């Protein structure tokens, strides 16, 4: 990316005309990318709720039957533990169902859950194609490719995020690491990995769904039972991604959130932004 002096002058000439009611905005997210981004919210919610109801029918993680209750499901144990220790839940009607009551459609709903899971799974695959189409048409995929420098950069960003709340409490300046790319060195690998995780969810999903016709696919993940384990933990990866993703977009401000809705950002120059922060 060589920047010539001519483009620099062009930049100056446009700002010289700032008496005119014109503002500069930077194109950020292509229409299809924005659509598929937001559609992922209801789709993933539907997949997780119906997926956990399916998990209930035959948990991946089981132990020997409990001598008194006969329970074999670790997730049910988590519910029992929560209801025994969280004030206000001590009289919960069915403690082993607590997790399923709050993180799934509910227990005893396997048929409903599977039907919804297929419905949302096909939507998820279609939505993935829309996302890929948006990235391909706009060339935005290039901004998502991780670089070798991201290893160090991601650590710097993680240090920044970890120290920022403390710095705010102590009213100390805490400088954002500088970067000249669309995404910072932590965002880039995170968005890249979560896209890969989406593909892996689809692949492990098919491995579980059609373990005979697609037995070669299941074999890649270590067979049918292992593919279920993969599929389960990929769900947690999405949840682990979404939590900081949502926190950071609100922390970063309205411009970032708005850009995923309208497509453009008013932050034309990254460098100006760092100036403002100081």
């Amino acid at each position: 990316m060589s920047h010539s002096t001519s483009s620099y002058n062009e930049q100056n000439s446009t700002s010289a005309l700032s008496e005119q009611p014109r503002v500069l905005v930077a194109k950020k997210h292509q229409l299809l990318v924005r659509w598929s981004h937001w559609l992922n919210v209801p789709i993933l919610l539907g997949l997780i709720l119906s997926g956990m109801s399916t998990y209930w029918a035959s948990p991946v993680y089981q132990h020997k039957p409990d001598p008194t209750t006969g329970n074999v499901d670790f997730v049910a144990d988590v519910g029992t533990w929560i209801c025994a220790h969280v004030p206000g839940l001590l009289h919960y009607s069915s403690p082993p169902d607590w997790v399923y009551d709050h993180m799934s459609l509910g227990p005893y709903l396997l048929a409903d859950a599977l039907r919804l899971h297929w419905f949302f799974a096909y939507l998820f695959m279609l939505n993935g194609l829309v996302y890929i189409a948006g990235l391909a048409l706009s060339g935005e995929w290039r901004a998502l490719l991780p670089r070798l420098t991201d290893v160090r950069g991601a650590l710097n960003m993680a240090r920044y995020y970890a120290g920022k709340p403390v710095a705010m409490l102590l009213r100390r300046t805490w400088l954002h690491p500088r970067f000249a790319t669309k995404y910072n060195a932590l965002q880039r690998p995170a968005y890249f990995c979560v896209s890969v995780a989406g593909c892996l969810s689809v692949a492990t999903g098919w491995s579980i769904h059609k373990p005979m016709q697609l037995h070669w696919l299941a074999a890649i993940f270590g067979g049918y039972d292992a593919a279920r384990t993969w599929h389960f933990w990929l769900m947690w990866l999405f949840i682990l991604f979404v939590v900081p993703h949502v926190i950071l977009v609100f922390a970063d401000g309205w411009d970032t959130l708005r850009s995923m809705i309208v497509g453009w950002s008013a932050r034309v120059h990254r460098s100006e932004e760092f100036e403002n922060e100081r």
Partner: protein
Amino acid sequence: MSADENHPTRKPEEIPSAEKRPQPRLKAQRFFEEQGPKIIKAAPGDLHRLTRRDLLLFGAGSLGALAGIGYLLPQETLGRLGVHADLDSPKKERFLNSALRFDDDVAEALYSPNRIVPTYSKSQITALRNNYNGATPDPSYIPGWRLTLEGLASGVSVSLDIRTLLARFTPHEQITRFVCVEGWSTIAWWSGLKFDDLLHAYPPISQARWARVDSSVNLDEAGNPDPYYASLDFATARHPQTLLATRFNGQPLTVEHGAPLRLLVPVKLGLKNVKAVTKITYRVDQPSDYWAERGYSRYDGI
């Protein structure tokens, strides 16, 4: 975006890095290189109007998605969320079942009559649970058990006892994975006659495309008769690994696993593998399925 001319510009000041130093680059390298954002000049008025439009659309879309998801959730889930209005309707059922039908069509398209499912060694065998949905039948039915065949080309029905079946057909052995709709799976060693051999010995009516497989000995949880039935398409029935199993892990079938004869279809979910088969009827139209009538899919190919 507004009709203003686009200005692809470069950032006036950039952090010097190795990447930025002018150096000869390969075409392929440039292809993967991130490009700076496209900068657009816009009138603030236009920008405000477009932003308002997009935010309103986004809000409407969010409400629509919320309503859509709410509508599709099972009544029990809605009740837990405090929505007690009855949203169940034949229309909703039809819509949700269309997802099942679509998925069944995909499964049927994926099926290949020549694809052999993986087989395992005896050391890989795992325990098979008795997943009778209701009570396990009393074994007293076994001595008088007979298999009835209907819908035959001959026009008469045939009734066979287990000794005739064992004497007449060559047994086949296989160690295959058995997958339940609930999610668990098991590897078991089965032995029995090929369904295809039965079809050849007792040919069905020429237009028949389906077999309805019945078990009259099935019970509900209270122990009352609750006949079980499943449909099986001929393409699957003719698969070389589709058996009418009589032995399990080297022993004759026990009552828990459908003595004296059960359907064993490795390319289908466990719920198609009818235990203690008492009747097979060849049909032109797709027969009903016990579990499809309870909200599960019908084809169940895996």
